[in-house]
C-alpha cells in the first residue's frame, strides 16, 4: 500500500483527499502557492511544500515543480483532485516517467477520453450512442465558424481538454458565433493550457445524467449508479442528486451497462464518470468521460456507502476491487448543493473576500465539505466554490426538507454567497416534483429571484440591531478613553461626536 501521497490541488477537494489518506494511515503532503499559504489544506496536511506564485499556471499547473517537490519529500504517489492537472495526460505520463504513482488513469486513457474528439470516435467504435458533432479538434477561429455553419445552429462549443463547464459556450444566433469562439478559446487556454475546441449539435432541454465507474488494474469495472446533474447555471452544475428522478430501473440498468462498456473500451483505471445527455423519453447519448473524481462524488458515496478516494488509492496501489457489482445498491436519496462565493442578485458575479463569520450546517444526514474558516481570505485566483452541502434521507422528499434545513443553518458573512438562491430552488415546484432538465434555471426565473418587497417589521428589527451595535461601540470607546485616562497622564481631547471618523 502507498505510504505517502502528495495532493496536487487546493481548497475543499485537497482537504477531502487528505481526510481519506489520514484514515488509511497515509502521510499527506500539501502543495501551495503564495495565495494559499494559510489555506486549510496546508493547515490540515502532515507536510506542506511551496510551489510558486498565486496564478495557477505558475503553481498548481506547474508539473515540473510539483514533480520535483514530490521527489524531494519522498511521496510515492500524487492525487490530482479535480481541475488543474487531474485530466492532463502529459502529467500522468511524467509521473510514470519519474516513477511516481499518478492516482488516476494512465496517459493513454486520459488522452483518448480527455480529447473529446478521440473519445467520440472510441465510443462510436464501442457501440455507445453519441451526439452529432465534429470529429477533429479546432485550433482556428475561421475553421470553427465554418464547422458551425455545417452542423447548423444551435451548437455547443467546448474545450477539447476541458470539463466542468469552463471554456464552454452555447451559440444560438449567427451574430454570437465569433465572440463565443474567442471567449471559449481564451477560457480554455487559461484553464487547461490548450485552446483547441470542438463543436457539438446542441440538444434542447436535455437531462444531464452521469454514471460513476471504478476500474482496477486487473480488468474489473463496476458502476456505482447515476447522478442527475441537470440543475446548471452557465453550464456549471450547482445541484446534483442520486437517484435521478427521471430514469426508470430498466433504463438505469441499461445505462449502467453502457457506462461499464465505455470504461472498458479505453482500458480505464481508477475512478471515472461517464456523462450522458438524456432526453425526456430517456434516450441517452454519451457526452464525455471525466477521467477523474467529480465535485459531486459525495452523493454517490452516501447512497452507495463507498469512500471513492480510498477506492482510488487502493486501485492505484495495485489492489483488485473489493466491491462486486451485485453487492451494490442505492440506499435512500442524496442531494448536493454547491456553495459559491458569488452574488446571485447581481448576475452571479464572483465575490472574493475575507470571511467575517461562518456557521456550518450539522446534524443527522448532513455532510458539509468546505475549506474556508473565519478570517480566511478567499483568493481571487481560483474557483469561487467554497463548499458543498450533501444531505441524505430515506426519501427524496425527506432529503429536500433536510437540505432546506441545512441551508437555513448555513450562515456566511463577509462575502456574498448563493445560499439563499439554493433555498429558493428547494422551494421551487418543478424541483420538488423532480420534473426539471438543464433548462431549469432559465425556465423558473420567476421563482428564483429574491424577495422584492420589504417587510417593515423585519426592517425595524435590523434597524434596532444596528442601533444596539452602534451603542455598544460608543460605550466601548468611552470605556477605553476612561481606562487610558486612569492609567496614564494622557490628555483627552474628547472628540466624542466624531469618534468614528
Amino acid at each position, binding site marked *: 500500500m502507498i505510504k505517502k501521497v502528495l495532493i496536487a490541488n487546493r481548497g475543499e477537494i485537497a482537504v477531502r483527499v487528505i481526510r481519506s489518506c489520514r484514515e488509511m494511515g497515509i502521510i499527506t503532503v500539501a502543495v501551495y502557492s503564495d495565495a494559499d499559504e494559510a489555506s486549510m489544506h496546508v493547515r490540515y496536511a502532515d507536510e506542506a511544500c511551496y510551489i510558486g506564485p498565486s496564478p495557477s499556471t505558475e503553481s498548481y499547473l506547474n508539473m515540473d515543480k510539483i514533480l520535483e517537490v514530490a521527489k524531494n519529500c519522498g511521496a510515492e504517489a500524487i492525487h490530482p483532485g479535480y481541475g488543474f492537472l487531474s485530466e492532463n495526460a502529459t502529467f500522468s505520463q511524467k509521473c510514470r516517467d519519474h516513477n511516481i504513482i499518478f492516482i488516476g488513469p494512465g496517459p493513454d486513457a486520459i488522452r483518448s477520453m480527455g480529447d473529446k474528439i478521440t473519445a467520440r470516435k472510441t465510443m462510436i467504435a464501442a457501440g455507445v450512442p453519441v451526439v452529432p458533432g465534429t470529429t477533429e479538434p479546432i485550433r482556428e477561429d475561421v475553421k470553427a465558424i465554418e464547422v458551425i455553419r455545417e452542423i447548423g445552429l444551435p451548437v455547443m462549443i467546448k474545450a477539447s481538454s476541458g470539463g466542468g463547464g*469552463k471554456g464552454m459556450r452555447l451559440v444560438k444566433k449567427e451574430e454570437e458565433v465569433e465572440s463565443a469562439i474567442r*471567449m471559449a478559446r*481564451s*477560457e480554455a487556454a*487559461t*484553464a487547461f493550457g490548450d485552446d483547441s475546441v470542438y463543436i457539438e449539435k446542441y440538444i434542447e432541454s436535455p437531462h444531464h445524467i452521469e454514471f460513476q465507474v471504478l476500474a482496477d488494474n486487473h480488468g474489473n469495472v463496476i458502476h456505482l449508479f447515476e447522478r442527475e446533474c441537470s440543475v446548471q447555471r452557465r453550464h456549471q452544475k450547482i445541484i446534483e442528486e442520486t437517484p435521478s428522478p427521471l430514469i426508470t430501473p430498466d433504463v438505469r440498468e441499461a445505462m449502467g451497462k453502457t457506462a461499464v462498456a465505455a470504461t472498458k473500451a479505453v482500458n480505464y483505471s481508477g475512478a471515472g464518470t461517464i456523462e450522458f445527455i438524456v432526453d425526456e423519453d430517456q434516450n441517452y447519448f454519451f457526452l464525455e468521460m471525466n477521467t477523474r473524481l467529480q465535485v459531486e462524488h459525495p452523493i454517490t458515496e452516501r447512497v452507495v456507502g463507498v469512500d471513492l478516494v480510498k477506492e482510488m488509492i487502493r486501485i492505484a496501489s495495485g489492489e483488485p476491487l473489493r466491491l462486486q457489482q451485485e453487492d451494490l445498491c442505492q440506499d435512500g436519496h442524496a442531494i448536493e448543493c454547491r456553495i459559491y*462565493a458569488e452574488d446571485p442578485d*447581481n448576475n452571479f*458575479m*464572483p*465575490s*472574493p473576500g475575507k470571511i*467575517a*463569520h461562518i*456557521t456550518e450546517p450539522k446534524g443527522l444526514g448532513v455532510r458539509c465539505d468546505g475549506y474556508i474558516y473565519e478570517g480566511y481570505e478567499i483568493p*481571487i*485566483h*481560483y*474557483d*469561487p466554490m467554497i463548499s458543498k452541502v450533501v444531505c441524505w434521507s430515506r426519501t427524496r422528499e425527506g432529503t429536500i426538507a433536510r437540505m432546506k434545513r441545512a441551508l*437555513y443553518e448555513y*450562515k456566511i*458573512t*463577509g462575502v456574498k454567497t448563493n445560499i*439563499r438562491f439554493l433555498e429558493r430552488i428547494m422551494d421551487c415546484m418543478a424541483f420538488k416534483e423532480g420534473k426539471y432538465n438543464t433548462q431549469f434555471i432559465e425556465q423558473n426565473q420567476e421563482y428564483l429571484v429574491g*424577495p422584492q418587497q*420589504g*417587510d417593515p417589521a*423585519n*426592517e*425595524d*428589527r*435590523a*434597524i*434596532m*440591531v*444596528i*442601533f*444596539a*451595535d*452602534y*451603542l*455598544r*461601540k*460608543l460605550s466601548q470607546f468611552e470605556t477605553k478613553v476612561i481606562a487610558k485616562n486612569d492609567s496614564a497622564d494622557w490628555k483627552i481631547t474628547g472628540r466624542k*461626536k*466624531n469618534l*468614528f*471618523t
Partner: protein
Amino acid sequence: MTSLEISLDDRLAKVKLLESEGNHFRILVDDKEYDSRIIMVEQGVYLMLLDGKSYNIELIEEGDPKKYFINTNRYSYNAEIIDAEAKYQKSRHADHGDDDSIISSPMPGKVVKILVSEGDRIKAGDTVVVVSAMKMESEYKVKKDRLIKEIRVKEGDTVEGHEPLVIIE
C-alpha cells in the same frame, strides 16, 4: 437619550433609545415602540428576542464603522448610521461626477484584454475591456457611442474592485 437616523436601503428611519439595561432595550423606530433583548453572541452575530420570537441578524461593517451590510433570514440590506457629520459629508458628495464615465469591475480581478486605445471613438455595445476573476471572464461594454479618454490599466494588471479601469466621455 440617544436619538439618530439610520438608512436601510431606500428607507430612512428615526431611531430613539427610550431605555436600556444590559442587553435589554426599549427603542422607538419611527413611531413604533419595541421592547427587546439584543445580544451579540459572536463577533457581528446578533440574537434578538422580541415578543417571544428568536431572530438571528448578522452585521458586517463595510470598511467604515458607520456602514453595515445586514443579513436577516430572508432579506439582506445596506445600512448607514446618519449623524450630523454624515449628513454634511452626503451633501458635499451629492454633485460628484457621473459614475457612467468610469468603467470599473465590481470585484477584484485581472485585466485579460483591453480592446481600445486612448482617443478611440467606439460604438454602443462595443467591448472595452475583459476582466477575469475566479476563472470567469466578464466583458465590459459601453451603452452609448463614446470616446475613450484615458486607460488607467494594462493587460495583465491585477485590479481592486471598483477601481477605475477606463475613463470615457
